[in-house]
């Protein structure tokens, strides 16, 4: 089963990379962008066909290693 984890800095925690990209977009003439947030996407292949089990496993992985919950939020998406 393919599971996608998206990790982003929490709302309210300044994202320096997002801010730099936002500034660059503005410089290039893309005016209509009000905010840019940059995160990372982690794609996992899990040896189970049970959706709930996969989600539970990946949640534990995210809490333990994949995200630093002091500064980051994450979402889990079961892809297939």
């Amino acid at each position, binding site marked *: 089963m393919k599971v996608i984890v998206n990790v982003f*800095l929490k709302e309210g*925690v*300044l994202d*320096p*990379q997002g801010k*730099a990209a936002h500034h660059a977009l503005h410089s290039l003439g893309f005016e209509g962008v009000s905010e840019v947030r940059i995160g990372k996407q982690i794609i996992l292949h899990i040896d189970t066909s049970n959706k709930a089990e996969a989600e539970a496993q990946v949640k534990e992985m995210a809490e333990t*290693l*994949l995200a*630093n919950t*002091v*500064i980051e939020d994450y979402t889990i998406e079961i892809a297939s």
Partner: protein
Amino acid sequence: MKVAVLRFPGTNCEFDTQYAFEKLGHETVLVWHEETTLPEDIDLVVVPGGFSYGDYLRSGSIARFAPVMKAVKAYADNGGKVLGICNGFQILTEAGMLPGALKRNHHLHFISKHQTICVVSNDNAFLNQCDKGEVLNIPIAHADGNYYIDEENLAKMEANGQILLRYSDAVGNRLVVNGSVTSIAGVCNETKNVFGLMPHPERAMEAILGSQDGMKMLQGFEA
């Protein structure tokens, strides 16, 4: 004093750290990350700087799960003193042994230069040889030194004397160097036996190399 200096794949400040403590007359021992115990009769564990595991995922995020870190956690829980420098600071925050987290510098640049830092708290086992408000000249070298802590915990740390060092100008006024919350450069835990800082005191041990201010910082552990 006997100092254990940890070594992970990608650590690169372990020899400088050994040199610094040996210059002060102390015995040092390198400890490989796969060890499950620390040497007996040690007085301090140093988690030195570098790029453990290539800084993959987040700086320090993989190293915190190395076998030796369980022993370091147990040592600290038992009151043992632990110092994390630069990547060592990042590893200790990732391990939850120090509050907060270190983000990418606000300007996204890697900074490598001498920097003045101001001593905020000295009633601890680390900075007791420095004066409160004293300005020290210590090299910094990092990309992820932008310290983050929420306001509530910042207030608690301030009240408990856990803010150790702030980036400053030559007379001690706060200076924005990497975007750190209130210019924080170093902190300790609530029980004041685990310390972390981004600046490198072990690189400020020789006048000929620009500063000897690191000596009085590291000498604090002798008291």
